[in-house]
């Protein structure tokens, strides 16, 4: 009970871990490229949460880690914008965004 009601570092870390695993699972099993991008975003959220958590619980006086996390989120959104642009081009060439259809790496 004590663990449930006293919110501490472990809760945030566990939340980050769950977000990461959800994202990883989504990346592996989804067929749609857009869903894969969203799952990647979720993974990044988990990682960023991890970063912010460590920052808060290790050094409470400065905001270095929190600010870095904000920058990381901005970078991730830029990265997603690039990903969506590539996805649109793939759609233009192939007519589909199904990863089963557009694979060309078969050995």
């Amino acid at each position, binding site marked *: 009970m004590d663990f449930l009601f006293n919110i501490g570092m472990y809760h945030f870390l566990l939340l980050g871990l769950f977000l990461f695993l959800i994202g*990883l699972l989504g*990346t*592996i*099993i989804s067929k749609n490229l857009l869903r*894969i991008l969203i799952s990647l975003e979720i993974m990044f959220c988990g990682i960023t949460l991890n970063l912010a958590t460590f920052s808060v619980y290790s050094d409470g006086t400065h905001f270095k880690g929190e600010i870095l996390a904000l920058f990381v989120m901005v970078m991730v959104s830029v990265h997603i914008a690039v990903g969506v642009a590539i996805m649109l081009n793939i759609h233009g060439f192939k007519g589909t965004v199904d*990863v*089963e259809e557009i*694979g*060309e*790496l*078969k*050995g």
Partner: protein
Amino acid sequence: MQFFIDNILLIFALPLIAMAIAFIGKFFKFSFSKGTVVYSSVTSTLVGLIYAVALYFYYHTGVTVEPTEFSMNWLRLGSLNVSLGILIDEVSTLFLLILMLISVVVQWYSASYMADDENFDLFYFLLNLFVFSMTALVLSSNMVQTYLFWEIIGICSYLFVNYYFKNAKVSEASKRVLIIDRIGDMMFCAGLLILIYFIFNYPIDASGELLSYTALTDSASDFYVYFSDTGFYLTSLLFFGAALVKSAQFPLHVWLIDAMEAPTPISALIHASTMVSAGIFLCIRLLPIFNLSEMMADTMLYFGLATAFICAFFAVAQTNIKKMLAYSTSSQLGLMFTALGIMVPATATYYLLTHAFAKALLFLIAGALIKYAGNGSLEYADMKISRKSNPVTALCYFIAILSLSGIFFGGFFAKELLFENLQITNSLAVVSIFCIICFMTAYYLFKSYFLIFESGCDVVKIPNSLKTTLVVMMFFVIGATYFVSNDLSFGGFCDAFEILSEPKSVLSLIIISVLGALTAYGVVLKKWESLPPVVNGFARNGAYIDKIFAFISDYIFEPIASLAKKIDKYVIDAFVDFQATATKTISWFVAYSQGGNIQSYLAHSVFVIILILVFCLVMAIGIGEV
């Protein structure tokens, strides 16, 4: 003169152009006329002849002229420098002159001789290829280059022997020619590799130039310090073996007999005068190496003398004109090796010159006789023609055999020089063997003359175009006499006029040869007893050397080869197949995981990371950290 030396590359380019003209005619729909092919070819060789004559007289003025060498670097492997180059000196200009003179006449002759042949273009293509590669061989400045063109002229010879390839017998013969030729090439290659090995392993100053002919004298004596005498002898023997095979010396002269399946103009050009002289050329070039080992001179002398004797003996019994001429060629080349063996290279080259013209003329006449008198048959019995109806042909033949048997013209001076030098340096046995060879030479040549021209009365029409070439060649035979006074640059060369001042020796040689001719007269026309039938059959079949080689290949090499084949099939092949099968199986497993789906790759990597984490955890628990 400087013009010819500066533009020497032209004589390489022109045969290639003539070759291309014939080539285009052969392999594309569009084709040049026969006239164009012939004229381009003859013109290119005529230009080459102008070069050859100019260079010859520049380098044979009686005073020593510095050799001209151009070379460019071709390969640089450590301390080994292989260059491609042109070396113009006394030897190469002489060989070039012989080559160009004879190939002009032969190309001219072939125009009418081969006119109704279906592969006319191919013939001229190969002819020009041969002229090109032989030019490059005699002008080559180092051994590697010589080796290169040595192989090419061997291939040209093979292709010409296989010219009538639709005939199975011709294919068989050409195969034997090629295989025996390869034996010589391999010896040359082995000798070169030994020299290259020494260049790599003994860093002395001159090592880079060992392969070059101009520096051979100095660098060979430097190397003599490292080689033992036996080593030098064996290396020289390899090169000498290559020369022996190329010059058709006993017992590997059999290829020359097989090579008589080639068209007759080719026998005149390649198998009588130019290609077979490549062996003499190589020996003259490598004399600085040969001189260093004591036994080499004697080896050359005895090999040459043995060949000269044995092949002359075989030639005596032949009834086939081309085989007789082939054995005669081997025999005469043996005498040239004898001349090299007693270290008189100038005599050898002069002998070569006179022999080349006379033998080429004999082959050209033989071609005309085969085609117009014998209807394709090569036997004396089928080509009896009247001397009175064909005075020009008979005169040409007579002059050629006069020169070749050493009674008159250049051949006399050549034989006389050799005779003198042999008398100075060698025992009575050697000299008397030489006399017997002279006797037999005169005998078989005059025997063929009497059999062909004096024992029949068929009227045979030989076209005037052929007769013209024969007469031109006859003038070359007579003109070759002139060169005896011109070739004074080598040491040990007697002056032509000094010979004539020794009447005893002169008379003895002439008497021996005339006796041979008289014997031939008696045997052919007065029906004297010839050789006993057993000896005759033995000599006619060339001492059954063919059969011996066939026996060796059937009963010695064949079992070895079949054993090797079994080993190849059941051991080496099995091993290689196993490797292939194993690789295939493994790659099937690996390829299975390469689905091309990036998500599966991601899943795999996550799985592997989890495995690594679990492994680390287990290890951590194991060492008690947790």
